[in-house]
């Protein structure tokens, strides 16, 4: 915008559009984004930058939003793109690179983009949950492979990978575990032995899983590593807490990135650095129920009380996911329609 036009627009606009960046930035995120009241106010007090949080559906929806509006984005920073969705966002050039201060305190395992177009913020796991007491005479699963046993498959409920994020992560877990040659046989065994597939997490957990509310009769469900934490903290006075099959866990890493086309790149970078700073990172476990990526963060005892440590999660390279996801889900669908 030229100086003449600025004068025409008026003094207030002039300050905003000609003198540096606007002092309000917009954080576009999914509906599971929660931070304690006041956390973003502290950022405003420290920097003079006001953060407007806008939420629009789940992670898949906001990534589709960012791709559809690429170049003219709804916000300045996007938080919530995960390793399942990362490649399609990178392919669509929705982010600009930014090397965040504080990245040195983050393990290399979660730094999935060498060009630093996204910054890792937190990490959670999609894991098989089960109730040992509801397994009857069947012995508890010790590995992903155990789930194909008839007595366990018949007690298992998971989700359609095309309509559910945990369902998709579980499909990826089986591909990471059994490889291109083996995952379909595993699923055929699940299918033939009576697995139940639901559209979403809520039906699987609350209508079929014995630990749900009101719950069903199945003793094994695909859910999150954080589910037992929720059960423990919000399950009333004497909560029942599920066990985690640690060998089944697929890591879900969430990233933040500066949206290409923003007029507040510098301030956007400062917000990402704030999200990565130890004080905010220490808030993440009890507000979003996932683990911080910054190793200097303090994880509260309340969170670890019910959490199972996941030492060796299953993983797939985002580029491999990006190249194969459509084919895998199609093959999975055809396998069930056989």
């Amino acid at each position: 915008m030229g100086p003449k036009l600025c004068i025409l627009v008026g003094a207030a606009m002039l300050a905003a559009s000609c003198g540096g960046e606007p002092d309000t930035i917009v954080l576009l995120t999914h509906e599971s984004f929660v931070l304690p009241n006041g956390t973003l106010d502290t950022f405003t007090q420290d920097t003079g930058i006001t953060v407007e949080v806008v939420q629009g559906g789940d992670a898949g929806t906001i990534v589709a939003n960012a791709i559809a509006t690429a170049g003219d984005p709804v916000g300045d920073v996007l938080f919530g793109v995960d390793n399942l969705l990362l490649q399609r966002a990178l392919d669509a050039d929705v982010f600009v690179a930014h090397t965040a201060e504080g990245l040195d305190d983050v393990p290399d395992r979660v730094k999935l983009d060498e060009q630093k177009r996204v910054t890792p913020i937190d990490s959670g796991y999609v894991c098989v949950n089960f109730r040992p007491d509801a397994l009857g005479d069947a012995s508890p699963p010790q590995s992903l492979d155990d789930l194909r046993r008839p007595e366990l498959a018949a007690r298992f409920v998971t989700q359609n990978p095309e309509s559910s994020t945990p369902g998709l992560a579980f499909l990826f877990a089986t591909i990471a575990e059994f490889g291109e040659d083996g995952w379909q046989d595993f699923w055929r065994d699940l299918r033939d032995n009576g697995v139940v597939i639901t559209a979403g997490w809520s039906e699987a957990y609350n209508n079929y899983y014995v630990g749900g509310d009101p719950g069903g009769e199945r003793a094994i469900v695909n859910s999150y590593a954080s589910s037992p934490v929720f059960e423990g903290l919000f399950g009333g006075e004497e909560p029942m807490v599920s066990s985690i099959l640690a060998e089944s866990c697929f890591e879900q890493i969430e990233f933040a990135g500066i949206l290409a086309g923003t007029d507040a790149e510098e301030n956007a970078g400062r917000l990402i650095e704030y999200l990565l700073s130890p004080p905010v990172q220490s808030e993440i476990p009890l507000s979003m129920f996932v683990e911080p990526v910054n190793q200097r963060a303090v994880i509260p005892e309340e969170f670890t009380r019910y959490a199972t440590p996941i030492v060796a999660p299953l993983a797939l390279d985002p580029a491999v996911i990006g190249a194969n996801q459509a084919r895998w889900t199609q093959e999975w669908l055809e396998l069930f329609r056989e």
Partner: protein
Amino acid sequence: MARTVQGVTDPPGESSAFGRLVGDRVSRGLGIAVLAFIAITVAYPALAMVRRFLKVAGERNAETLSFGSTVDIVGFTITQAALSTLLTLAAGLPLAHVLAEYSFRGRRVVEVATLVPFVLPTVVVAIAVQRALISVGMNFDGIDGSLPAILIAHVVFNVAVVVRVVGVYWRAMDRRPNEAAAVLGSTPLSVFWRVTLPRLRPALVAASAVVFLFTFTSFGVIVILGGLSRSTIETEIYRYAITRNDFSAAALLAVVQAVAVGGLAYLNQRLQGRVGASGGSPARRRWSQTMSWQQVLHAGTVIVITLGFLLSPFALLAWRSVRVDSGFGLDHYAALALRPAVLPISPARAVVHSVVFAAAAAIVATVIGVAASVSAQVSSRLARIVETAVLVPLGISAVTLGFGYLVGFTFLELRRSPVLVVVAHAVIGLPFVVAALLPAIRSLDNGVLDAGVVLGATPAHVLRRIALPLLRPAILAGAGFAAAVSLGEFGASGFLARGRSSFTAPQAVFGLLGQPGADFQGQAAALCIVLGLLVVLVVLLIDRGRSTLGRGWL
């Protein structure tokens, strides 16, 4: 046959008495205004979405979308919507009849109670239906899905449309032709088939069109109850756009859907025809204040069965909402005032936001809906286009509209503005207002309006003092509907980027249901109950105007 029992029928090609009173110029002006509103809020964003999606897709073609599979998808979409509509009519007409024929204490509460499922997020109702069917032993392996389950859920949602649109019309209908037929020796059944049903046609067609298009774009119910093998245009648009990011396939399906909806809306307009039944006659019927025991039995049976069916998901939620650790209590309701760990604000604040949006959306939908219904009364091509166009928003995918707003309204920071949420709610409410009002205007007794003019009143005076009071129940029924639709809306607005001040109650229910923890499940149930009671209260308040029928408008 149909024409001969209508009483006063206008010669084809001429405007009704109402249309003549409004005048061609006013009618044309209103029609153009309504079309402009729909062009800006529906057509433009839909085009913007298609254009943008095709551009984003670039040279990547819709690989997985074959002609054959598209035909299958369109076929199932229309089949399930047609079956849902027929079943909803069958389930709703007995109650519409009872509410039209009898006067009793609580009649209005019964009518409004049918709206309760309407405001629950579709996902909640679908989950409840699935749970109920599992508990009666139905086998859901999630693979084949279940058409009966889909239909049941759709009926639960849409009975309110039949009860309200047809019921209000039926109650105002002149009973003299029925009585004449009975006196001349027709059996009650034959009177119903040969006199009542044909005369109800405008309302039946209007209600059917709304139910059809509403189920045509149903999303949550199909995804949850349809398994892996049943998909509709709506669920496929979502799958291609959001799950697969195959934007060209999504755009193609959006076009297919828009063409199908345009055709269906046109068909509806042809079916509705220019029927000028003499219905809302001022020679109003007196309802007897005492009912015979047969009548009490009849009304009681219909009410208990219909409401029992519609409200069973709600009853389960009510039971859940008062169950706490120590037995029973209102702890979950009290907790709604606090922000739970999984939501950005407290559910109570989300409810306040929802009420504000519902009020704003109902006002916009009612103003535009009245203008559309009035402008459709003259006999002109414009009037027919208006009548067709107002139905279209119901049949357009939430993905199309939501993303259309995101890529179309890039100016003036509109994309993050609550104004878009109001607009998204209002365009969905608009067809409900028109469905309630249009048949009512069509059924106005031309003779009464003409008499006013002959006796020397100005057209404006006749409209205000005679037509408006007669139409008031229908206008208010439409406004109540629009408010209810807004309270439960979780479609297009779900794709908009919204600040905390636009976070609504259905989003809060969704957030609470998304994690384990008995506390959250209890609070979600309590919030659903609050929403249900709220819609009854809001609509009863709006409906209060209906009891002053016959007095002045102001």
